[in-house]
């Protein structure tokens, strides 16, 4: 690789090919997103206790992952882009969890 002139980075592991997603795939994704929306509305009317928000968030995450993978072509992208997307959500989780360490533990010792 050192001697080889590789301007397009094709032998670079960070590279991936340009993949064209077909309308059929898009249509399947579209329908599944609509179904997901319907399920989440229906689930909201069923009493699941503390699982209501869990279910709602699980569906929302699934939908988001589908959009990211197919509409946003991440499934067909290089490892670099996948890593980038992962890094974004990782940092978001750092923000949430590390801040929560404060809020959750503030009342420790007061509540039993």
């Amino acid at each position: 690789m050192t001697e080889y002139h590789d301007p397009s980075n094709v032998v670079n592991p960070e590279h991936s090919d340009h993949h064209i997603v077909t309308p059929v795939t898009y249509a399947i994704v579209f329908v599944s997103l609509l179904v997901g929306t319907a399920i989440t509305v229906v689930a909201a009317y069923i009493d699941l206790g503390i699982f209501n928000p869990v279910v709602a968030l699980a569906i929302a995450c699934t939908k988001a992952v589908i959009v990211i993978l197919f509409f946003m072509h991440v499934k067909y992208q290089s490892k670099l882009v996948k890593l980038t997307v992962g890094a974004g959500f990782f940092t978001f989780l750092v923000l949430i969890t590390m801040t929560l360490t404060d809020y959750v533990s503030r009342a420790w010792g007061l509540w039993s």
Partner: protein
Amino acid sequence: MDNATVVTHPHTHETAVAAEHEHVALPQHRHHFETPEQQREAGTFGMWLFLLTEIMFFGGLFFAYLLYRNWYNPAFVAASNQLSIPLGAANTAILISSGFFMALGVWAAEVRKKGLLVIFLVLTTLFGVAFLGIKYVEYHEKWEKHHIPGASFDVSEFVNPHAYGLKEQPLAPDMAQKTQVFFFLYFAMTGMHALHMIIGIVLLFWLTWRANRGEFSAGYVAPIENFGLYWHFVDIVWLFLFPLLYLINRHPV
């Protein structure tokens, strides 16, 4: 152009279309990239990094929501129930459709179908505008009910719901005040989202105009692709906002 002298690499592309544009010196190819391929990948990667900043931007708001929802759950439940699920669900469907047409638009650009591309972009725009229209109706209702945080915010509907014909549990006055926090977060989050939509729609007009001139039907699709990423990201934000804001504890108490 320097890419004319580039040694062709042994790699072959799966689709003829992609392989074809590989060897064409595009007018949009900028001098400091060695190949259009490199330029395209740099563009996509750059766009993703920008979306990363957007994740963190909304991330702050999402955390504020998470915190206050836990602290003031009854207020959040009561205030959330004032939002209209039919409108919210309709808006979700509309936004998904808009995203679907955007995705089709990217496809149309990649297979170089100018007519289809323009049609899809127009449809994307129309659905985007429809979303904002419904959002306006919802905002207007909040305005009339004095549910906009600030000096004129009115909590009487939550303290005494039966007088307003609502089947809610009445909230204690101190808790009712906290509905203002919910509505602020509602307006901040959906407002920030709507702002992104408006920016997107302005860009869509510009892109449609350029697409109509045939700029994106000769193998140069980066602007359409990257705008698509932005538009889908805005969709994703809404996919979370809808359940979080509209669907807190909807089941009959």
